[in-house]
């Protein structure tokens, strides 16, 4: 068989094989669907059902303290929310936190992944170190950070040379946001690093050697060979982390309780439902948050031109 004609022959053979095994394909299709069905139904039940309920509740003025006053208001709650500057302030905070933390985590995470990929000694120590922030409870890490930054009991002021000992991190908007973002970055960089490590281990050593012989500098190898070949891994990492960062709640709850205008979208929703008992308004916020996240996921997939299934080679 000639190498030039190989593709055609391959295709023909493939088609023949497909025709012959179409019965098998049907059976496989059926079995596959049967096996995923329970998980998918359960997922829909626990996720979609409350969401539909939220959609319904969002059309009412409904306060739990006065349940009898429940009244249909149509899109009224949405109008109220969308014209409220607090909503926009909180959305802005959330976006800032998401963009900054994901960007920094990508850089630090890539550095970690590189080190873990290259270093051959003490790999156990590296893996253990990196998994501890990953496994630690976010609330715990938030407390650790809050204490570290605290005025009377924190070491940060003493350690940082350019910060006065009486600097109150939680006394201003940006410094409090900074502390929150540090906590978020510390906790989730390992996750990012491990996902990037997955991509890095797919970049073959031979290809890098070929690039060296072809005359690529270190920087050219990084940008023209390594990163393009890690696109799928970067996409998965960014998708996971961006969505995760967008729902930031734990760190803010523990560190500032939303003081100094550090409230996030999730925190606002929580406050409406649980503290204010405004179920209608809270549900409208829930729906908006849900839509934003969908939009975000869609945008990331479009931006990278790969979707998670493709990234896993199931495309």
């Amino acid at each position: 068989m000639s190498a030039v004609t190989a593709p055609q022959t391959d295709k023909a053979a493939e088609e023949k094989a497909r025709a012959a095994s179409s019965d098998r394909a049907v059976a496989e299709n059926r079995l596959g669907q049967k096996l995923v069905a329970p998980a998918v139904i359960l997922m829909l039940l626990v996720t979609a059902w409350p969401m539909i309920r939220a959609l319904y509740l969002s059309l009412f003025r409904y306060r739990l303290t006065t349940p009898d006053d429940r009244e249909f208001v149509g899109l009224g709650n949405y109008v109220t929310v969308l014209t409220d500057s607090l909503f926009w302030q909180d959305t802005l905070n959330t976006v800032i936190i998401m963009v900054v933390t994901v960007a920094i985590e990508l850089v630090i995470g890539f550095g970690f992944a590189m080190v873990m990929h290259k270093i051959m000694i003490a790999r156990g120590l590296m893996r253990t170190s990196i998994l501890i922030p990953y496994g630690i409870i976010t609330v715990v890490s938030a407390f650790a950070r809050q204490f570290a930054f605290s005025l009377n009991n924190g070491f940060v002021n003493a350690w940082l040379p350019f910060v006065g000992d009486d600097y109150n991190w939680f006394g201003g908007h940006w410094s409090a946001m900074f502390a929150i973002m540090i906590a978020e970055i510390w906790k989730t960089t390992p996750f990012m690093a491990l996902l990037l490590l997955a991509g890095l281990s797919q970049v073959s050593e031979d290809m890098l050697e070929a690039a060296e012989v072809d005359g690529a500098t270190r920087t050219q190898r990084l940008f023209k060979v390594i990163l393009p070949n890690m696109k799928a891994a970067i996409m998965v990492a960014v998708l996971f982390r961006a969505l995760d960062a967008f729902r930031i709640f734990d760190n803010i709850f523990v560190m500032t309780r939303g003081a100094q205008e550090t409230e996030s979208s999730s925190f606002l929703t929580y406050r409406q439902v649980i503290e204010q008992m405004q179920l209608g308004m809270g549900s409208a916020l829930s729906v908006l948050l849900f839509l934003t996240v969908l939009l975000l996921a869609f945008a990331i997939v479009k931006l990278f031109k790969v979707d998670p299934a493709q990234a896993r080679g199931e495309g």
Partner: protein
Amino acid sequence: MAAIDIKNIVKKYGDGFPAVNDVSIDVQDGEFMILVGPSGCGKSTLLRMIVGLEDITSGDMMIGDKRVNDTAPRDRNLAMVFQNYALYPHLSVYENIAFPLRLAGAPESEIDEKVRKASKTLDLDEHSERKPGNLSGGQRQRVAMGRAIVRDADAFLFDEPLSNPDAKLRGQMRTEISAAAEAPGHHHGLRHARPDGGHDPGATGSRC
């Protein structure tokens, strides 16, 4: 322009195994050299030392009149086809071949001309836009070959270049390799091939 002089080269891998043991080969400028030897005798290792991908345990590697033991691969200006081709999966066939030219900052028109010419010789024109992952073994090997021959390198090293293509192509590529070796500026070609693919058997390492 660039003769390759290999003087008493020894390569011991990390596990202490002497893959290449005291080899000396002198390849003249423009000479065509084939290394033949059984599997595992150190052919790939020797080529990798010439391009600088492998540390030299002892001995001197001279390219032209320069000792290059400590020179980075990208500063040696050699082209090589890898035994496993090592293509860039994210780039099309065309871009794979163009890659070294782009790195060298060649003008677009020159890149296009050279890549097209190479694709034509290697019978790859109809696959230009495809990704290497979807090619057959022989096609991949030809892409790797294309990536080497478009360059204006001081020497060309081919690690088993003719093991996959069929007889007709093999003849064609042999001609192409000779042409690359004789073209002005390409004063020298060094290749090595499987025993069955080679003629002009040259020097071999003492262990082989």
